[in-house]
């Protein structure tokens, strides 16, 4: 068993209650920091840890925090991104539902480091039952003096609230999230200015993923140095992987970064292989947005080295033969899967979720959905395959926010690795997977 930083106590009954969390070392990091340390000390530890954002982009957290504009006397905000809507991703829900105080503790520490006095947890509206669990935990933390005015007599004040979304994947994008929190449509903003300079209400703002913030208490307690020794190379620490699809044992697993992909899929401790003893066909390793890889390329890189669960190893080979760690949404498909239909389903998702601001994304996702539907149902032409790849190429890099790219990558990678499956649909004029 690898080291557990986020899930060590996750199966304890009533861990969501203050006393239980506290009994297992909870809020000790806050006590330590508020008694002895400066905000800069916390920032330094997070920098040393090399913790990278767990929301998908893997941006170094300490560096992000150091960008917050301290030159103004405006309020500063910390927002926890709990929108979790990337298909295949369900780790933040698991963590918040079982261990809400860990996130709260992480947010207190991050707010202290950033000089923030008001923080929000933006949580997708479908997860209202989790919002209620969080609010209960927050009120316990207020009652015990860990939130509110003059926390533990330190002079540090912090208010923390939950804020629900209402069904819009795009609100996971940080500037759309900020718009939504201001009570508007979730249309992403042009960057710059970045939120660190002008975010919520035009004030300096940091947006971090749930898992990122929940990693901070361990780092503060054990030191950034200790955290940086876990994992592999520049992929330090542990990562929650939410595994789903055709696995024997889907679920959320905390892994040490660097675990071989093969061990994760087939290992007894992890997913235990493919259901019904079927063969592995393909994996989308980091949420629906990252490039899909066929079985051979997810298990081994093109150079023949074992593929590891780390930012670098999954990227090995670039977009030609690699993928990304992304959000850790690990979607596994067995030999019975129609890859074209899978892609059509994902593309319909992006079309449905496009906010509509940029025409390449708004129109392009719609075209791709139509072409894919045509191919999948056996009514397409051979030239549709290249047309599809062309539309995707024209979206990439031409939009305000990365949702455009996110819709294009699955298309381009599926065409690259599974071209013969498209051709089969077109030659047989039907889906070969329908019996």
């Amino acid at each position: 068993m690898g080291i557990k930083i986020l899930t060590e106590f996750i199966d304890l009954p009533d861990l969501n209650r203050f006393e239980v969390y506290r009994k297992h070392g909870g809020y000790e990091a806050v006590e330590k920091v508020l008694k002895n340390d400066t905000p800069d000390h916390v920032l330094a530890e997070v920098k040393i840890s090399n913790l990278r954002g767990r929301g998908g982009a893997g941006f170094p957290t300490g560096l992000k925090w150091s960008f917050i504009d301290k030159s103004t006397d405006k309020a500063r905000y910390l927002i926890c991104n709990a929108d979790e809507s990337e298909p295949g991703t369900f780790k933040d829900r698991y963590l918040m539902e079982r261990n809400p105080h860990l996130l709260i503790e992480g947010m207190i520490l991050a707010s202290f480091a950033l000089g923030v006095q008001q923080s929000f947890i933006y949580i997708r509206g479908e997860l209202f039952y989790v919002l209620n669990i969080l609010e209960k935990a927050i009120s316990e933390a207020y009652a015990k003096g860990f939130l509110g005015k003059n926390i533990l007599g330190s002079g540090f004040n912090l208010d923390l609230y939950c804020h629900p979304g209402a069904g819009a994947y795009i609100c996971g994008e940080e500037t759309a999230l900020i718009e939504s929190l201001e009570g508007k449509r979730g249309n992403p903003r042009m960057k710059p200015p970045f939120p660190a300079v002008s975010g919520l209400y035009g004030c300096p703002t940091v947006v971090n993923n749930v898992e990122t913030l929940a990693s901070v208490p361990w780092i503060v307690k054990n030191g950034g140095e200790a955290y940086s020794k876990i994992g592999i190379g520049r992929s330090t620490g542990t990562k929650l992987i939410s595994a789903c699809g055709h696995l024997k044992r889907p679920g959320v697993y905390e892994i040490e970064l660097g675990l071989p992909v093969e061990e994760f899929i087939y290992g007894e401790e992890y997913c235990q292989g493919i259901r019904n003893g079927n063969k592995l066909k393909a994996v989308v390793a980091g949420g629906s947005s990252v490039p899909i890889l066929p079985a051979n390329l997810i298990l081994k890189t093109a150079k023949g080295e074992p593929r590891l669960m780390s930012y670098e190893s999954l990227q090995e080979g670039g977009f030609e033969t690699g993928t990304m760690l992304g959000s850790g949404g690990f979607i596994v498909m067995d030999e019975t899967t129609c890859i074209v239909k899978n892609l059509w389903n994902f593309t319909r998702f992006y079309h449905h979720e496009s906010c509509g601001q940029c025409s390449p994304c708004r129109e392009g996702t719609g075209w791709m959905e139509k072409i894919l539907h045509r191919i999948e149902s056996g009514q397409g032409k051979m030239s549709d395959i290249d047309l599809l790849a062309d539309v995707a190429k024209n979206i990439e890099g031409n939009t305000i926010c990365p949702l455009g790219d996110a819709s294009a990558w699955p298309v381009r990678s599926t065409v690259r690795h599974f071209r013969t499956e498209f051709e089969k649909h077109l030659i047989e004029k039907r889906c070969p997977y329908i019996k």
Partner: protein
Amino acid sequence: MESSNTKEIKFSEESLEMVKGLIRRYPEGRQKSALIPVLHIAQAEFDGWLSPAVMDYVASLLDIQPIEVYEVATFYTMFNLTPVGNCVIEVCRTGPCWLNGSDDIIEHLEKKLNIKAGQTTADGMFTLKTVECLAACGNAPVMQVGVKYHEHLTTSKVDQLLDTFRAEGMISHTNPYT
């Protein structure tokens, strides 16, 4: 199905208190931030959907223009802009759920309820909606009714749930803050 337009549009005392509390969470002059939370409460209280009159009422409570409410209500898929049944069933249709048979679940529900996704049964009991990934893919297929998730669905589990909803006279639009 009761239409919101037939009753006076005003929150209960309890909800009004809740709304005031929500507004206080945001800095002064930023009460518009409370719009989405308040719309959730409004939808629950006024029959599960947001009529123009309800949206106007919310605008007045938050001291913003009605158009600002319409813009938001039309953007987010959780807000219903036409009347719905007492029990709204939202089935996930996205990739991971599809890999685990969500198409069959949706088809089964359409047959059992004798409606298509997006429609409401003639007796006003059920509305069937398809939704995108609910962050529960490890327990696919999944559907949501009110705040509750129902996971690892099979057609027989769906049958049992429908029977229970009928027997209990399930109303899915209750205040989500509990």
